[in-house]
């Protein structure tokens, strides 16, 4: 049977080219996503700062939660967003461990030279320089509290030499320091960060966690191995929140953001790859069904000559496996450069930190091959069910024997898919977080497209019944197109499905982002009452700025705003904003529906309606939280507000939240009253600050959303490209097969132009049907998505963009039929 399958494949290369191409793309896609996933799972985060430190002691960066299910306790851990500081006394505990040679406490806090990139510019105490080690190359160590040592890379970028004076923006107000030395490491200037070293006393003051350390570097005494030391330290620290890291484990301690990016990569790789595979099953099943339909007579002959239905199914399955094998091997290879490209783009967009090195291993391609084989096999089995039921008598008759009805089983399956889609829509409208909702949107679209595939012949006939009247206005080509469509509704169904998927999926990917973005922007724009927004080019707006602004005559209220994330003890993640409660009524209106923001004390919290609904909270209730730095707290709900997307899930008092953030500086300061000039004058001695109008907050939201959207597009773009290829594929296949029909039309006197016009009209009708179905699916999904995420069923379908998507799909359909159509017409009509 395998030999037979191989021979058929060789002889009918063209028929299987469609499935081959689709599977090849699927394999490449899965390989690329697999590589992302593997980088997420096993990607090495190399340490830079702790390169010379054999053992690093750091706080536990996870929140833990134990869930009891019957007798079993399930232990779950989720990463925290901010750095967890070591409790006081940890250094002493470690120092007392026998075999410890030296304990070097390390402080890490934001510190940027004004005018230099604030990103990854960190302050430390000079006494911890040995961790890397940093050595003074030029000048000397900082002696007075106004002295700093900076790394050679930063000195080069800022054009500074020992003796120069420079303003540094750290956690407090900016201050002027004297550069006393330029330091470098044995491996040259650091690549991932800028380092600013202060005296120990100054560093402690700026770090703002009295008595606490960021990490401890532990060096062994002579004759003690690093591993041995680590074990002893771990033993001594058992029961404390401190954790011991060595070797590759040090990197994630240094770059907690990279550690979080891993999780994102895993979920992104999984979602894209999974969606890609489902799309592949759908389109490949379509191409196989088309192939089976084109070789009905051959299969019927086989049945007549003595193949059992099972043998026909097996034959189709093996052909599919062979096609899958060839496509999988090539696709997996093609996926490797694609993976590199994807990683580079994600890095460029900031979704993947540069510190996370891509993993190159044979696993993703090795996993892509069986995934492709499985896809091919499943697709073939789905399409073979029908093919194997071909009545052998068909082979004896000249008539092509096209069944016009939709079999009952197919009808039931189609209706079941519609019902399943409806259930998913209902689920989706209850999902309130993007990571939960996004995969469900894709799944919903896919399931509804499966319904279209199953009910396709009915839909195609209905579409041509509706569009038949205008079609028949064109006397020859339109008349032919309309009749063809009625007779070949199954063929049309095969091409409508991938086009519908293309329209629906593209629309959903693009407009779920705009739906969220528009809602957030709208809420932010409506909710900001302040006249002015003060922002910083550096790490943030210092507290002194807010102080100066309050003293400006005419200013009614000044609100400092910070953002972060917190978790509940049950590990739910919420976005949170911290705002100055005084006079907030004049700057912000988050749409309070119960309680009042004026009661927002240090122990108070305001919650969005989404949170209030899902947790059943009302003013006066208590809400237990874990701050980003791991500090637990129980706060009292003081208010419930509507504009959760614009202002975050939770709102806390500014001081309370800022104390638990790595960077306590305000993201922005909102000001009500006074004129811009006066504000600017008041801030004159604070560098890097800008006064913008109140709408700026919404713009920032929009920019952030756009960056978010770009990452989503990049990932799903691959799936969309794949869907587009599959659509073209199916259309080309179904047209190329019609050479005999075209020849007949030519023989009976139809001109070439009329045949081509007929084809164009058919493609247009197909595209129009797909546009209607795709738009309907997209709208249904987005409505559910938006009512879950934004609380109102208001999908933002940008008409221009949507028309562009439809036009692109139509153009694709026209091109994909015109080219093979012309080729098929090249044969002389006599043949």
């Amino acid at each position, binding site marked *: 049977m395998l030999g037979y399958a191989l021979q058929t494949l*060789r002889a009918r290369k063209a028929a299987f080219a469609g499935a081959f191409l689709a599977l090849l793309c699927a394999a490449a896609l899965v390989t690329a996503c697999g590589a992302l996933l593997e980088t997420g799972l096993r990607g090495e985060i190399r340490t830079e700062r702790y390169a010379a430190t054999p053992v690093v002691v750091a706080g536990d960066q996870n929140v833990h939660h134990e869930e009891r299910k019957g007798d079993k306790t399930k232990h779950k851990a989720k990463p925290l967003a901010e750095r967890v500081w070591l409790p006081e006394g940890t250094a002493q505990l470690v120092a007392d461990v026998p075999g410890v040679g030296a304990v070097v406490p390390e402080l890490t806090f934001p510190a940027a030279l004004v005018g230099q990139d604030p990103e990854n510019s960190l302050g430390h105490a000079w006494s911890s320089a040995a961790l890397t080690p940093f050595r003074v190359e030029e000048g000397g160590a900082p002696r007075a509290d106004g002295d700093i040592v900076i790394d050679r890379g930063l000195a080069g970028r800022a054009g500074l030499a020992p003796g120069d004076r420079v303003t540094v923006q750290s956690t407090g107000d900016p201050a002027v320091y004297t550069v006393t030395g330029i330091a470098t490491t044995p491996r040259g200037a650091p690549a991932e960060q800028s380092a600013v070293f202060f005296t120990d006393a100054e560093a402690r003051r700026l770090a703002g966690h009295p008595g606490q350390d960021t990490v401890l570097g532990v060096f062994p005494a002579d004759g003690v191995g690093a591993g041995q030391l680590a074990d002893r330290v771990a033993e001594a620290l058992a029961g404390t929140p401190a954790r011991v890291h060595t070797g590759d484990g040090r990197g994630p301690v240094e770059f907690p953001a990279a550690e979080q990016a891993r999780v994102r990569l895993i979920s992104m790789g999984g979602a894209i790859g999974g969606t890609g595979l489902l799309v592949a099953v759908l389109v490949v099943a379509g191409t196989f069904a088309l192939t089976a339909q084109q070789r009905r007579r*051959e299969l019927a002959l086989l049945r*007549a*000559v*003595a193949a*059992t*239905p099972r043998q026909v199914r097996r034959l189709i399955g093996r052909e599919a496996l062979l096609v899958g094998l060839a496509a999988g091997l090539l696709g997996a290879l093609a996926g490797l450069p694609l993976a590199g490209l994807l990683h580079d783009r994600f890095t460029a967009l900031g979704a993947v930190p540069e510190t996370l090195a891509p993993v190159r291993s044979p696993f993703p391609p090795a996993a892509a091959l069986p995934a492709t084989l499985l896809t091919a096999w499943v697709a073939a089995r789905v399409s073979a069910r029908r093919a194997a039921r071909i009545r052998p008598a068909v082979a004896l008759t000249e008539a092509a024997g096209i069944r016009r009805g939709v079999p009952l089983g197919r009808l039931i399956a189609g209706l079941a898919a519609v019902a399943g889609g409806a259930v998913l829509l209902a689920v989706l409208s209850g999902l309130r977080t993007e990571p939960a909702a996004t995969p469900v949107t894709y799944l919903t679209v896919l399931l509804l497209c499966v319904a279209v595939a199953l009910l396709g012949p009915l839909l195609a006939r209905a579409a041509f019944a509706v569009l038949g009247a205008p079609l028949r206005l064109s006397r020859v080509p339109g008349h032919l197109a309309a009749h063809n469509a009625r007779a070949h509704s199954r063929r049309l169904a095969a091409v409508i499905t991938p086009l519908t998927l293309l329209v629906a999926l593209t629309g959903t990917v693009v407009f779920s982002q705009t739906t969220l973005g528009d809602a957030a922007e709208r809420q932010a724009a409506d909710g900001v009452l302040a006249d002015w927004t003060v922002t910083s080019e550096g790490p943030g707006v210092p507290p002194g700025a807010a102080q100066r602004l309050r003293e400006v005559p005419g200013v009614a209220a000044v609100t400092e705003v910070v953002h972060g994330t917190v978790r509940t003890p049950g590990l739910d993640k919420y976005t949170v904003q911290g705002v100055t409660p005084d006079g907030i009524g004049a700057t912000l209106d988050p749409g309070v529906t119960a309680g009042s923001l004026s009661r927002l004390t240090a122990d108070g919290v305001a919650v969005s309606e989404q949170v209030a609904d899902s947790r059943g909270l009302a003013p006066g209730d208590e809400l237990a939280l874990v701050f980003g730095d791991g500090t637990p707290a129980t706060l009292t709900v003081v208010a419930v507000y509507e504009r959760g997307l614009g202002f975050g899930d939770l709102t806390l008092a500014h001081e309370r939240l800022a104390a638990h953030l790595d960077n306590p500086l305000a993201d922005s300061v909102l000001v009500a009253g006074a004129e811009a000039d006066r504000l600017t004058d008041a801030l004159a001695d604070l560098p890097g600050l800008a006064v913008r109008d109140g709408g700026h907050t919404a713009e920032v939201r929009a920019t952030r959303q756009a960056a978010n959207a770009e990452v989503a597009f990049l990932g799903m773009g691959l799936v969309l490209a794949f869907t587009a290829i599959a659509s073209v594929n199916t259309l080309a296949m179904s047209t190329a097969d019609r050479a005999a029909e075209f020849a007949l039309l030519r023989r009976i006197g139809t001109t070439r132009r009329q045949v081509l016009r007929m084809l164009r009209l058919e493609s247009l009708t197909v595209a129009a049907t797909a546009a209607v179905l795709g738009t309907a699916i997209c709208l249904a999904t987005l409505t559910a998505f938006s009512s879950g995420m934004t609380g109102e069923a208001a999908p933002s379908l940008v008409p221009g963009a949507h028309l562009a998507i439809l036009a692109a799909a139509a153009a694709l359909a026209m091109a994909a039929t015109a080219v093979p159509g012309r080729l098929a017409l090249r044969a002389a009509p006599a043949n």
Partner: protein
Amino acid sequence: MTVRTAVRLDAVTKIYGRRGRGGVVALDAVTAALPHGSFTAVMGPSGSGKTTFLHCAAGLDHVTSGTSWIGDTELSGLNETQLTRLRRRRVGFVFQSFNLVPALTVRHNIALPLRLAGRRTDRRRLDGILERVGLAGKASARPAELSGGQQQRVAIARALITRPDVVFGDEPTGALDTVTAREILALLRDCVDTGGQTVVMVTHDPVAAAHADTVLFLADGRLTDRMEAPTADRVADRMTHLGAWA
């Protein structure tokens, strides 16, 4: 009635579509018995039910009512897979066109029933059959490289490879010129005379029918007449009475 029949139909009715609701009665209570080692031609005007007769007799299609046998096996009780196994062992087919799998060489096309049955192909036997149908040396050709007559010879060779009891032909000469047609008919005749097989052939050509021992005439789904030791002229004459050439 002790002569063993190779093919038997007993009050076979076949209705396409739904009974009574616009269904087409293709066979109407047809009863026939074709003895072993006979050559039967089935004739009738277009739409008379010739092809349906063949399908029902060969187990390619289920009957609506009545029973049909191949040898002593009743077909009505068999499912698709059992029917296929039966066809594999006991029945060979030669169709008017599209007899061969385009992807396979002549050798593989002929050996296809054996391969599907999971049996080895005896090379000598295959070569013998190729020679018998006059295709020695063409074993590696593909169907597209052969003439229409040659393709029909391959189909006959395939029908003979399993040593079936009955060979069914559906207009096997319908697409051939007179000379080639005569050669193909001679081959079928030879199957009966030297191979002892039973041949049932649907045709509309009186000359082709004249090669048979018996001709059955069908009209409107009923057996209307039969003729032993036919000649082309007598068959044509009878067809005229049936209104075929009116």
